[in-house]
């Protein structure tokens, strides 16, 4: 069942049975949870990630098709889309996270990689994939809300964060009737986040539980639920959706 541009409200609530969903970065965190939810709703899954072992395990779990490569290698990305066996219905890009540092410590190579991953990757995906997506399907990009704050050390991430909603809106016009939407997340509690925050993770979780209006920490399943909603609600395009449990309201 291909996504339709003329779905009724009832049809918009249908699951993803018969549809094909591609997740770039589908072996962990937000990408993995979205893949699990989309699969549970009947979608055929095609997953990519850099880590072939982890991707293979997820492929086995979900009965998915997999391709292991770095999506910021744009020549490989183009060949991946060329090799897709069938049209797809939806595509989620979960790029790497934002880089930010004080000017005195600013690493130009890291910043360039971030531009590739956050700005050029969505553009490349739109260019390579739009013709592969059935009308009414969606390209879903991910971003964060942290870069909306004004603070020393955030100049680069602030610029990238501001760019993505504008890019999303323009792409939504350019690739229509394929839809384009952006998910902007705050802190999301994943094993990877925990491994990086180390012994500070419990403190951060507790801080968020105590301060967020929702009284709990946002998890990858929360983001997945929004992503799948945006896949199935064919009225939504060119939009940016914040999902941070109210983090911006209390952290500025």
């Amino acid at each position, binding site marked *: 069942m291909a996504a339709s541009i003329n779905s009724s409200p009832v049809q918009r609530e249908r699951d993803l049975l018969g549809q094909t969903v591609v997740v770039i*970065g589908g072996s*962990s*965190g*937000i990408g993995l949870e979205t893949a699990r939810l989309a699969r549970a709703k009947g979608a055929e899954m095609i997953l*990519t990630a*850099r*880590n*072939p072992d982890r*991707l*293979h395990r997820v*492929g*086995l779990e979900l*009965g*998915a*098709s*997999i*391709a*292991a*490569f*770095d999506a*910021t*290698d744009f020549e*490989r*990305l183009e*060949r*991946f889309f060329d*090799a*897709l*066996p069938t049209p797809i219905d939806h595509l989620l890009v*979960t*790029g*790497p*996270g*934002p*880089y*930010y*540092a*004080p000017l005195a*410590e600013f*690493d130009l190579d*890291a910043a360039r*990689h*971030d531009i590739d*991953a956050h700005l050029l990757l969505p553009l490349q995906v739109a260019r390579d994939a739009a013709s592969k997506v059935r009308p009414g399907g969606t390209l879903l990009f*991910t*971003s*964060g809300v*942290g870069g909306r704050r004004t603070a020393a050390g955030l100049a680069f991430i602030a610029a990238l964060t501001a760019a993505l909603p504008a890019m999303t809106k323009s792409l939504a016009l350019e690739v229509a009737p394929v839809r384009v939407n952006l998910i902007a*997340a*705050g*802190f*999301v*509690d*994943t094993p*990877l*986040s925990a*491994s*990086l*925050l180390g012994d500070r993770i419990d403190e951060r979780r507790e801080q968020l539980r105590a301060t967020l209006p929702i009284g709990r920490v946002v998890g*990858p399943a929360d983001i997945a639920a929004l992503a799948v909603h945006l896949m199935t609600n064919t009225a939504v395009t060119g939009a940016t959706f914040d999902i941070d449990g109210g983090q911006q309201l209390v952290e500025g």
Partner: protein
Amino acid sequence: MSARYRDESDAQLAGSNRGLMGVADVTPTRVASSKTTTALRAE
């Protein structure tokens, strides 16, 4: 790199700096059983 890490997406960035590239294949291949590991052949 002295970036501070604060959320999930930051964590993914750090992961990207850890040299995870290596064995790769851009052709989507269905994983039906553990015997399909060869689909992850090196290019």
